[in-house]
């Protein structure tokens, strides 16, 4: 059947695999597991002042596991100005920029800034989830997507999970209405909380995200983000829609 064939050809991505950088053997086993589960791309968060050795080590582990690697940075600014400063300093050093919004001002600034790829909100303090209609409207006009991490759904229990699912249901509906892309990622810090892409897609039924949207959030949306940023970071990029196709060497 064409639908199944299409599903099988999907390239899945986990843009938030929180591997411990200080423990290379655990990092290796987590990346290996991501590959076994069917992911083709992993985004690994790095500290803003990372070393080249850290990157080359992760790149080596990922190439051994036959999985693509994207560098990611998570900002947790306290003020919009702090966010702007961080973006100015580090945007060109990472393929993915995610902003964890702790205040409404930061959330609004992050949503309208085209340098921000991913908007994240607290999973424990639900009062700090600022993804409402206004935030969605701003995000839909920029390039940012709403990130939903799925490991917390596995980690939380009873009433805290119920409240999180309730918030996610409201936010997913808002994002779908405003056509803000959703990115699903694991946010896993341990192999124990890693699941295959189709299992994560099934988990999204708990907050009423349609299966087609869930699969898109695990494949097309993260890949589009990473490929767009790779183009922008390449030496051939000039401006949106303009890039160098060839260089004439001197006579």
């Amino acid at each position, binding site marked *: 059947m064409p639908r199944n064939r299409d599903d099988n050809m999907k390239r899945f991505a986990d843009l938030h695999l929180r591997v411990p950088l200080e423990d290379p053997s655990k990092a290796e086993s987590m990346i290996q597991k991501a590959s076994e*589960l069917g992911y083709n791309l992993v985004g690994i968060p790095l500290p803003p002042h990372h070393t080249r050795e850290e990157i080359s080590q992760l790149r080596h582990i990922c190439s051994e596991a036959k999985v693509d690697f994207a560098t990611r940075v998570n900002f947790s600014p306290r003020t919009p100005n702090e966010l702007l400063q961080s973006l100015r300093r580090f945007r060109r050093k990472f393929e993915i920029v995610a902003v964890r919004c702790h205040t409404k001002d930061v959330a609004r600034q992050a949503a309208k800034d085209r340098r921000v790829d991913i908007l994240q909100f607290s999973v424990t303090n639900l009062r700090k989830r600022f993804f409402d209609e206004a935030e969605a409207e701003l995000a839909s006009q920029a390039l940012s997507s709403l990130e939903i991490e799925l490991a917390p*759904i*596995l*980690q939380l229990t009873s009433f805290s999970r119920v409240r999180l699912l309730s918030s996610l249901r409201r936010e997913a509906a808002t994002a779908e209405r405003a056509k803000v892309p959703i990115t699903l990622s694991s946010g896993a810090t341990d192999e*124990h*909380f890693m*699941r*295959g892409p*189709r*299992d*994560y897609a*099934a*988990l999204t*039924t*708990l907050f009423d995200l349609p*299966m087609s949207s869930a699969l898109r959030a695990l494949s097309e949306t993260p890949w589009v983000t990473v490929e767009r940023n790779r183009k922008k970071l390449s030496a051939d990029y000039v401006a949106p829609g303009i890039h160098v196709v060839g260089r004439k060497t001197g006579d």
Partner: protein
Amino acid sequence: MALEVVNEQTLNEQTVMDAVQASVHRLFGEYGASKANLKLTKTLPEKRQFVIRCSHKALEQVRAAIASTTAINGKNATIQVLGVSGTLKALSKKTRNI
């Protein structure tokens, strides 16, 4: 649905089935569990693999419940879905080693 249990303890099929049932019950309640219609079909305990059947209408709910299982008998465990199919024959083709 072919499943593989990843953990460090030895488990029998009834323990795994109980864990899946409990997870469906926890997430979807008695009404959801009654619609899932879960049954154990085949076991390969040496490979920690199990085949269960469920209503195709409740497939995504059962899959979500299986994915949300993080412990069996109070110890860390993960249940992975190896494959899903409508018949045992197609499932064995899909997953090869079942």
